[in-house]
Protein backbone atom coordinates (compact mmCIF):
# COMPACT_ATOMS: atom_id res chain seq x y z
CA UNK A 1 0.00 0.00 0.00
CA UNK A 2 1.29 3.39 -0.96
CA UNK A 3 3.15 4.88 1.93
CA UNK A 4 4.25 7.65 -0.33
CA UNK A 5 2.14 10.69 0.32
CA UNK A 6 3.32 12.66 -2.67
CA UNK A 7 1.65 10.37 -5.23
CA UNK A 8 -0.69 12.52 -7.22
CA UNK A 9 -4.28 11.51 -6.83
CA UNK A 10 -7.30 12.98 -8.50
CA UNK A 11 -9.53 15.32 -6.47
CA UNK A 12 -8.51 14.17 -3.06
CA UNK A 13 -7.56 15.82 0.23
CA UNK A 14 -9.06 17.47 3.28
CA UNK A 15 -11.44 19.82 1.51
CA UNK A 16 -12.75 17.05 -0.77
CA UNK A 17 -13.26 14.88 2.24
CA UNK A 18 -15.36 17.53 3.96
CA UNK A 19 -17.27 18.51 0.82
CA UNK A 20 -20.48 16.49 0.84
CA UNK A 21 -22.22 18.21 -2.07
CA UNK A 22 -24.22 15.83 -4.25
CA UNK A 23 -24.02 13.08 -1.65
CA UNK A 24 -26.30 11.67 0.99
CA UNK A 25 -27.46 13.12 4.31
CA UNK A 26 -25.10 10.84 6.25
CA UNK A 27 -22.13 12.33 4.53
CA UNK A 28 -23.33 15.81 5.48
CA UNK A 29 -23.64 14.67 9.06
CA UNK A 30 -20.15 13.15 8.85
CA UNK A 31 -18.77 16.54 7.80
CA UNK A 32 -20.62 18.33 10.59
CA UNK A 33 -19.57 15.74 13.14
CA UNK A 34 -15.95 16.09 12.23
CA UNK A 35 -15.93 19.90 12.12
CA UNK A 36 -17.81 20.20 15.41
CA UNK A 37 -15.48 17.64 16.95
CA UNK A 38 -12.41 19.62 16.04
CA UNK A 39 -14.02 22.86 17.27
CA UNK A 40 -14.85 21.22 20.59
CA UNK A 41 -11.39 19.71 20.99
CA UNK A 42 -9.74 23.05 20.40
CA UNK A 43 -12.21 24.78 22.71
CA UNK A 44 -11.55 22.13 25.34
CA UNK A 45 -7.86 22.98 25.37
CA UNK A 46 -8.64 26.66 25.80
CA UNK A 47 -11.37 25.97 28.34
CA UNK A 48 -9.10 23.92 30.60
CA UNK A 49 -6.65 26.80 30.74
CA UNK A 50 -9.48 29.24 31.29
CA UNK A 51 -10.72 27.25 34.26
CA UNK A 52 -7.15 26.98 35.55
CA UNK A 53 -7.33 30.73 36.19
CA UNK A 54 -10.16 29.99 38.55
CA UNK A 55 -7.75 28.08 40.75
CA UNK A 56 -5.56 31.19 40.93
CA UNK A 57 -8.20 33.08 42.88
CA UNK A 58 -11.13 35.48 42.40
CA UNK A 59 -9.04 38.30 40.97
CA UNK A 60 -7.48 36.25 38.25
CA UNK A 61 -10.90 34.81 37.44
CA UNK A 62 -12.54 38.25 37.17
CA UNK A 63 -9.68 39.38 34.95
CA UNK A 64 -10.16 36.37 32.67
CA UNK A 65 -13.90 36.98 32.47
CA UNK A 66 -13.31 40.65 31.73
CA UNK A 67 -10.77 39.76 29.07
CA UNK A 68 -13.22 37.43 27.37
CA UNK A 69 -15.98 39.98 27.87
CA UNK A 70 -13.97 42.53 25.96
CA UNK A 71 -14.60 40.44 22.81
CA UNK A 72 -18.16 41.75 23.02
CA UNK A 73 -20.64 40.05 20.79
CA UNK A 74 -17.96 37.76 19.36
CA UNK A 75 -17.61 36.00 22.67
CA UNK A 76 -21.31 35.22 22.65
CA UNK A 77 -21.28 34.12 19.04
CA UNK A 78 -18.29 31.93 19.74
CA UNK A 79 -19.98 30.37 22.74
CA UNK A 80 -23.13 29.91 20.74
CA UNK A 81 -21.22 28.02 18.05
CA UNK A 82 -19.57 25.89 20.70
CA UNK A 83 -22.89 25.17 22.37
CA UNK A 84 -24.30 24.15 19.01
CA UNK A 85 -21.25 21.99 18.31
CA UNK A 86 -21.61 20.23 21.64
CA UNK A 87 -25.31 19.61 21.10
CA UNK A 88 -24.86 18.29 17.56
CA UNK A 89 -21.73 16.28 18.29
CA UNK A 90 -23.39 14.67 21.28
CA UNK A 91 -26.68 13.86 19.61
CA UNK A 92 -25.12 12.63 16.38
CA UNK A 93 -22.56 10.72 18.41
CA UNK A 94 -25.37 8.84 20.12
CA UNK A 95 -26.74 7.87 16.73
CA UNK A 96 -23.30 6.67 15.66
CA UNK A 97 -23.01 4.58 18.82
CA UNK A 98 -26.32 2.95 17.98
CA UNK A 99 -25.00 2.26 14.48
CA UNK A 100 -21.50 1.16 15.21
CA UNK A 101 -21.68 -0.55 18.59
CA UNK A 102 -25.14 -2.04 18.49
CA UNK A 103 -25.63 -2.32 14.73
CA UNK A 104 -29.02 -0.61 14.98
CA UNK A 105 -30.86 1.52 12.41
CA UNK A 106 -29.08 -0.39 9.66
CA UNK A 107 -31.61 -2.99 8.71
CA UNK A 108 -30.70 -6.61 8.12
CA UNK A 109 -28.72 -8.12 5.26
CA UNK A 110 -31.21 -8.47 2.42
CA UNK A 111 -31.29 -9.46 -1.20
CA UNK A 112 -30.77 -6.11 -2.90
CA UNK A 113 -33.70 -5.08 -5.03
CA UNK A 114 -33.34 -2.75 -7.96
CA UNK A 115 -33.40 0.25 -7.77
CA UNK A 116 -31.00 -0.23 -4.92
CA UNK A 117 -31.76 1.70 -1.78
CA UNK A 118 -29.28 0.65 0.87
CA UNK A 119 -31.09 -0.24 4.07
CA UNK A 120 -28.35 1.39 6.13
CA UNK A 121 -29.30 4.75 4.66
CA UNK A 122 -33.02 4.20 4.51
CA UNK A 123 -35.99 5.22 6.59
CA UNK A 124 -34.84 4.56 10.16
CA UNK A 125 -31.53 6.24 9.63
CA UNK A 126 -33.13 9.27 7.99
CA UNK A 127 -35.69 9.59 10.78
CA UNK A 128 -32.88 9.48 13.33
CA UNK A 129 -30.97 12.19 11.50
CA UNK A 130 -33.96 14.49 11.19
CA UNK A 131 -35.05 13.98 14.79
CA UNK A 132 -31.53 14.80 15.90
CA UNK A 133 -31.46 17.90 13.74
CA UNK A 134 -34.84 19.06 15.05
CA UNK A 135 -33.86 18.63 18.70
CA UNK A 136 -30.45 20.18 18.20
CA UNK A 137 -31.80 23.20 16.38
CA UNK A 138 -34.49 23.79 18.99
CA UNK A 139 -32.00 23.62 21.84
CA UNK A 140 -29.52 25.69 19.92
CA UNK A 141 -32.03 28.52 19.41
CA UNK A 142 -32.86 28.37 23.11
CA UNK A 143 -29.17 28.63 23.95
CA UNK A 144 -28.76 31.48 21.52
CA UNK A 145 -31.60 33.45 23.06
CA UNK A 146 -30.09 32.90 26.50
CA UNK A 147 -26.67 34.09 25.42
CA UNK A 148 -28.11 37.17 23.73
CA UNK A 149 -30.23 37.88 26.78
CA UNK A 150 -27.04 37.97 28.78
CA UNK A 151 -25.80 40.61 26.40
CA UNK A 152 -28.86 42.69 27.10
CA UNK A 153 -30.08 42.76 23.51
CA UNK A 154 -33.31 41.00 24.23
Amino acid at each position, binding site marked *: *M*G*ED*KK*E*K*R*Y*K*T*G*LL*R*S*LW*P*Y*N*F*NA*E*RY*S*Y*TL*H*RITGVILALYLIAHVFEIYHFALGPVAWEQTIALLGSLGIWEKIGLWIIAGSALYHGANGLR*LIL*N*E*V*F*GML*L*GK*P*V*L*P*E*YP*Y*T*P*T*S*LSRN*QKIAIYVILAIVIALWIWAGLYLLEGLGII
Partner: protein
Amino acid sequence: MKVRIRRYDGQKEWWQDYEVDVKSSDTVLDVLNKIREKQDHTLAFRLSCQMGSCGSCGMVINGLPALACQTRISELKTDSIRIEPLYNYKVIKDLVVDLNEFVNKHRSVKPWIIRKNPEELEEAPIEFKVTPEQNLTFVQFDYCIMCGICLAACPTVAIDPLFLGPQALGQAYRYIADPRDEGFEERIDILDDSHGVWRCHFAGACSYVCPKGVDPAKAIQFLKKEILKYRLLHKKKAATKPAELVEKAPPPNAPKPPPFDFKFEGGV
Protein backbone atom coordinates in the same frame (compact mmCIF):
# COMPACT_ATOMS: atom_id res chain seq x y z
CA MET B 1 -25.47 17.25 -26.10
CA LYS B 2 -22.38 18.83 -24.66
CA VAL B 3 -19.94 16.47 -22.98
CA ARG B 4 -17.01 17.74 -20.92
CA ILE B 5 -14.33 15.20 -20.25
CA ARG B 6 -11.35 15.51 -17.96
CA ARG B 7 -8.33 14.49 -20.01
CA TYR B 8 -4.83 13.61 -18.90
CA ASP B 9 -2.01 12.36 -21.05
CA GLY B 10 0.71 11.74 -18.50
CA GLN B 11 1.89 15.33 -18.36
CA LYS B 12 -0.90 17.80 -18.60
CA GLU B 13 -4.52 17.81 -17.56
CA TRP B 14 -7.27 19.61 -19.38
CA TRP B 15 -10.99 19.70 -19.95
CA GLN B 16 -12.16 18.82 -23.41
CA ASP B 17 -15.59 19.53 -24.82
CA TYR B 18 -17.36 17.31 -27.30
CA GLU B 19 -20.67 17.72 -29.05
CA VAL B 20 -22.51 14.42 -29.43
CA ASP B 21 -25.89 13.44 -30.82
CA VAL B 22 -27.61 11.25 -28.27
CA LYS B 23 -30.80 9.31 -27.94
CA SER B 24 -32.58 9.40 -24.60
CA SER B 25 -32.10 5.66 -24.20
CA ASP B 26 -28.32 5.97 -24.54
CA THR B 27 -26.10 5.39 -21.58
CA VAL B 28 -23.08 7.50 -20.75
CA LEU B 29 -20.92 4.65 -21.99
CA ASP B 30 -22.63 4.81 -25.39
CA VAL B 31 -21.81 8.50 -25.51
CA LEU B 32 -18.17 7.81 -24.72
CA ASN B 33 -18.08 5.07 -27.34
CA LYS B 34 -19.47 7.47 -29.90
CA ILE B 35 -16.79 9.98 -29.05
CA ARG B 36 -14.01 7.42 -29.26
CA GLU B 37 -15.21 5.85 -32.48
CA LYS B 38 -16.35 8.89 -34.38
CA GLN B 39 -14.52 11.91 -33.02
CA ASP B 40 -11.42 11.29 -30.97
CA HIS B 41 -9.59 7.97 -31.12
CA THR B 42 -7.19 9.02 -28.40
CA LEU B 43 -9.76 9.06 -25.60
CA ALA B 44 -8.97 6.31 -23.10
CA PHE B 45 -11.57 4.69 -20.85
CA ARG B 46 -12.24 1.14 -19.76
CA LEU B 47 -15.27 -0.87 -20.69
CA SER B 48 -16.18 -4.48 -20.97
CA CYS B 49 -19.55 -6.07 -20.35
CA GLN B 50 -21.82 -3.02 -20.94
CA MET B 51 -24.50 -4.49 -18.70
CA GLY B 52 -23.40 -3.47 -15.24
CA SER B 53 -21.82 -6.68 -14.08
CA CYS B 54 -18.07 -6.37 -14.68
CA GLY B 55 -17.31 -3.01 -13.05
CA SER B 56 -14.86 -1.67 -15.62
CA CYS B 57 -16.47 1.64 -16.39
CA GLY B 58 -16.53 3.38 -13.02
CA MET B 59 -16.15 7.13 -13.43
CA VAL B 60 -17.46 10.35 -11.96
CA ILE B 61 -20.49 11.57 -13.88
CA ASN B 62 -21.76 15.03 -13.01
CA GLY B 63 -19.98 14.90 -9.69
CA LEU B 64 -21.21 11.49 -8.57
CA PRO B 65 -19.20 8.27 -8.97
CA ALA B 66 -21.16 5.75 -11.03
CA LEU B 67 -20.91 3.03 -13.64
CA ALA B 68 -21.12 4.65 -17.05
CA CYS B 69 -22.86 1.62 -18.56
CA GLN B 70 -25.84 1.86 -16.29
CA THR B 71 -26.27 5.62 -16.14
CA ARG B 72 -28.83 6.59 -18.71
CA ILE B 73 -28.74 10.07 -20.19
CA SER B 74 -32.41 10.56 -19.45
CA GLU B 75 -31.77 9.90 -15.75
CA LEU B 76 -29.22 12.68 -15.50
CA LYS B 77 -31.81 15.35 -16.26
CA THR B 78 -29.18 17.80 -17.46
CA ASP B 79 -28.31 19.05 -20.90
CA SER B 80 -24.58 18.63 -20.45
CA ILE B 81 -22.47 15.86 -18.97
CA ARG B 82 -19.27 16.31 -17.00
CA ILE B 83 -17.14 13.19 -16.86
CA GLU B 84 -14.08 12.82 -14.66
CA PRO B 85 -11.92 9.90 -13.61
CA LEU B 86 -12.70 8.36 -10.22
CA TYR B 87 -11.72 10.54 -7.28
CA ASN B 88 -8.99 9.45 -4.86
CA TYR B 89 -7.16 7.34 -7.42
CA LYS B 90 -4.02 7.93 -9.41
CA VAL B 91 -4.94 8.73 -12.98
CA ILE B 92 -2.94 6.98 -15.67
CA LYS B 93 -4.59 8.36 -18.75
CA ASP B 94 -7.86 10.24 -19.27
CA LEU B 95 -10.51 8.23 -17.44
CA VAL B 96 -8.28 5.25 -16.69
CA VAL B 97 -7.22 5.06 -13.05
CA ASP B 98 -4.71 2.85 -11.28
CA LEU B 99 -6.55 0.13 -9.37
CA ASN B 100 -3.54 -1.81 -8.10
CA GLU B 101 -3.72 -0.32 -4.65
CA PHE B 102 -7.39 -1.15 -4.54
CA VAL B 103 -6.89 -4.82 -5.38
CA ASN B 104 -4.04 -5.07 -2.89
CA LYS B 105 -6.27 -3.74 -0.16
CA HIS B 106 -8.88 -6.31 -1.07
CA ARG B 107 -6.32 -9.07 -0.94
CA SER B 108 -4.92 -7.91 2.40
CA VAL B 109 -8.11 -8.78 4.31
CA LYS B 110 -7.86 -12.47 3.33
CA PRO B 111 -11.04 -12.64 1.30
CA TRP B 112 -11.37 -16.38 1.03
CA ILE B 113 -12.98 -19.16 3.03
CA ILE B 114 -10.70 -20.16 5.90
CA ARG B 115 -11.26 -23.44 7.69
CA LYS B 116 -9.49 -24.69 10.79
CA ASN B 117 -8.94 -27.86 8.83
CA PRO B 118 -7.85 -26.73 5.34
CA GLU B 119 -8.43 -30.23 3.98
CA GLU B 120 -12.15 -29.55 4.16
CA LEU B 121 -11.75 -27.09 1.33
CA GLU B 122 -10.18 -29.71 -0.90
CA GLU B 123 -11.72 -33.04 -0.02
CA ALA B 124 -14.91 -32.54 1.93
CA PRO B 125 -17.48 -35.35 1.74
CA ILE B 126 -20.28 -33.52 -0.01
CA GLU B 127 -21.07 -29.92 0.73
CA PHE B 128 -21.69 -27.49 3.54
CA LYS B 129 -25.20 -27.20 4.74
CA VAL B 130 -26.26 -23.60 4.38
CA THR B 131 -29.91 -22.84 4.82
CA PRO B 132 -31.49 -20.07 2.75
CA GLU B 133 -31.63 -17.94 5.91
CA GLN B 134 -27.92 -18.37 6.54
CA ASN B 135 -27.27 -17.61 2.90
CA LEU B 136 -29.06 -14.33 3.32
CA THR B 137 -26.62 -13.15 5.99
CA PHE B 138 -23.79 -12.64 3.51
CA VAL B 139 -25.04 -12.90 -0.03
CA GLN B 140 -25.78 -9.18 -0.26
CA PHE B 141 -22.14 -8.38 0.37
CA ASP B 142 -21.10 -10.94 -2.21
CA TYR B 143 -22.71 -8.78 -4.88
CA CYS B 144 -19.54 -6.64 -4.97
CA ILE B 145 -18.19 -6.30 -8.50
CA MET B 146 -14.97 -4.55 -7.43
CA CYS B 147 -15.54 -1.47 -9.51
CA GLY B 148 -13.83 0.73 -6.92
CA ILE B 149 -16.56 3.36 -6.96
CA CYS B 150 -17.08 3.27 -3.20
CA LEU B 151 -13.50 4.37 -2.57
CA ALA B 152 -14.03 7.37 -4.81
CA ALA B 153 -16.96 8.45 -2.66
CA CYS B 154 -15.45 7.71 0.75
CA PRO B 155 -14.43 10.84 2.69
CA THR B 156 -11.87 8.92 4.72
CA VAL B 157 -10.12 7.54 1.65
CA ALA B 158 -9.97 11.11 0.39
CA ILE B 159 -7.58 12.02 3.18
CA ASP B 160 -6.19 8.63 4.14
CA PRO B 161 -5.03 6.43 1.26
CA LEU B 162 -3.87 3.82 3.77
CA PHE B 163 -7.44 3.25 4.94
CA LEU B 164 -8.56 -0.19 3.78
CA GLY B 165 -11.69 1.29 2.32
CA PRO B 166 -15.30 0.20 2.13
CA GLN B 167 -14.73 -2.50 -0.47
CA ALA B 168 -12.07 -4.44 1.43
CA LEU B 169 -13.85 -4.09 4.77
CA GLY B 170 -17.17 -5.05 3.25
CA GLN B 171 -15.58 -8.14 1.76
CA ALA B 172 -13.95 -8.99 5.07
CA TYR B 173 -17.39 -8.94 6.64
CA ARG B 174 -18.80 -11.00 3.77
CA TYR B 175 -16.42 -13.81 4.66
CA ILE B 176 -16.77 -13.37 8.40
CA ALA B 177 -20.54 -13.60 8.09
CA ASP B 178 -20.30 -16.66 5.86
CA PRO B 179 -21.33 -19.64 7.97
CA ARG B 180 -18.73 -21.78 6.20
CA ASP B 181 -15.84 -19.57 7.30
CA GLU B 182 -13.78 -19.93 10.46
CA GLY B 183 -11.14 -17.30 9.84
CA PHE B 184 -12.40 -14.49 12.06
CA GLU B 185 -9.39 -14.54 14.35
CA GLU B 186 -6.97 -14.52 11.45
CA ARG B 187 -8.54 -11.42 10.00
CA ILE B 188 -9.15 -9.45 13.14
CA ASP B 189 -5.64 -8.09 13.52
CA ILE B 190 -5.64 -6.83 9.96
CA LEU B 191 -8.98 -5.13 10.39
CA ASP B 192 -8.37 -3.81 13.89
CA ASP B 193 -5.55 -1.58 12.77
CA SER B 194 -4.91 2.14 12.99
CA HIS B 195 -5.93 2.40 9.35
CA GLY B 196 -8.47 -0.37 9.48
CA VAL B 197 -12.12 -0.64 10.26
CA TRP B 198 -12.21 2.13 12.87
CA ARG B 199 -11.32 4.79 10.34
CA CYS B 200 -14.82 4.39 9.00
CA HIS B 201 -17.04 7.06 10.52
CA PHE B 202 -20.17 5.99 8.74
CA ALA B 203 -20.59 8.72 6.19
CA GLY B 204 -22.51 6.13 4.17
CA ALA B 205 -21.32 7.57 0.87
CA CYS B 206 -20.10 4.14 -0.24
CA SER B 207 -23.54 2.64 0.10
CA TYR B 208 -25.05 5.67 -1.54
CA VAL B 209 -23.03 5.30 -4.74
CA CYS B 210 -22.71 1.50 -4.86
CA PRO B 211 -24.06 0.39 -8.25
CA LYS B 212 -24.99 -3.11 -7.05
CA GLY B 213 -26.66 -2.40 -3.71
CA VAL B 214 -23.89 -4.07 -1.72
CA ASP B 215 -24.29 -1.58 1.12
CA PRO B 216 -20.69 -1.69 2.38
CA ALA B 217 -21.48 0.81 5.13
CA LYS B 218 -23.84 -1.67 6.68
CA ALA B 219 -21.25 -4.42 6.46
CA ILE B 220 -18.62 -2.25 8.13
CA GLN B 221 -20.90 -1.31 11.05
CA PHE B 222 -21.70 -4.99 11.55
CA LEU B 223 -17.99 -5.72 11.39
CA LYS B 224 -17.34 -3.17 14.15
CA LYS B 225 -20.02 -4.78 16.23
CA GLU B 226 -18.47 -8.22 15.74
CA ILE B 227 -15.01 -6.96 16.69
CA LEU B 228 -16.31 -5.24 19.82
CA LYS B 229 -18.17 -8.38 20.76
CA TYR B 230 -15.03 -10.40 20.34
CA ARG B 231 -12.91 -8.02 22.39
CA LEU B 232 -15.38 -7.48 25.20
CA LEU B 233 -17.26 -10.74 25.41
CA HIS B 234 -14.91 -13.13 23.59
CA LYS B 235 -17.75 -14.11 21.32
CA LYS B 236 -16.70 -15.21 17.90
CA LYS B 237 -19.04 -14.62 15.04
CA ALA B 238 -22.33 -14.57 16.84
CA ALA B 239 -23.98 -13.46 13.63
CA THR B 240 -24.15 -16.89 12.07
CA LYS B 241 -23.77 -20.40 13.27
CA PRO B 242 -21.03 -22.33 11.50
CA ALA B 243 -22.25 -24.58 8.74
CA GLU B 244 -22.16 -28.31 9.04
CA LEU B 245 -20.95 -30.66 6.41
CA VAL B 246 -23.65 -32.78 4.88
CA GLU B 247 -23.36 -36.44 5.74
CA LYS B 248 -21.38 -38.50 3.35
CA ALA B 249 -23.69 -39.59 0.56
CA PRO B 250 -23.36 -42.83 -1.39
CA PRO B 251 -20.51 -42.49 -3.90
CA PRO B 252 -21.64 -41.63 -7.43
CA ASN B 253 -21.55 -44.32 -10.08
CA ALA B 254 -18.07 -45.25 -11.16
CA PRO B 255 -17.22 -43.59 -14.49
CA LYS B 256 -17.45 -46.46 -16.91
CA PRO B 257 -18.80 -45.76 -20.36
CA PRO B 258 -21.84 -47.75 -21.39
CA PRO B 259 -21.65 -50.14 -24.34
CA PHE B 260 -21.77 -48.73 -27.82
CA ASP B 261 -25.37 -49.65 -28.60
CA PHE B 262 -26.59 -48.30 -25.27
CA LYS B 263 -30.31 -47.73 -25.61
CA PHE B 264 -31.54 -44.62 -23.95
CA GLU B 265 -34.95 -45.11 -22.44
CA GLY B 266 -35.61 -41.87 -20.62
CA GLY B 267 -38.65 -39.66 -20.89
CA VAL B 268 -37.35 -37.01 -23.22
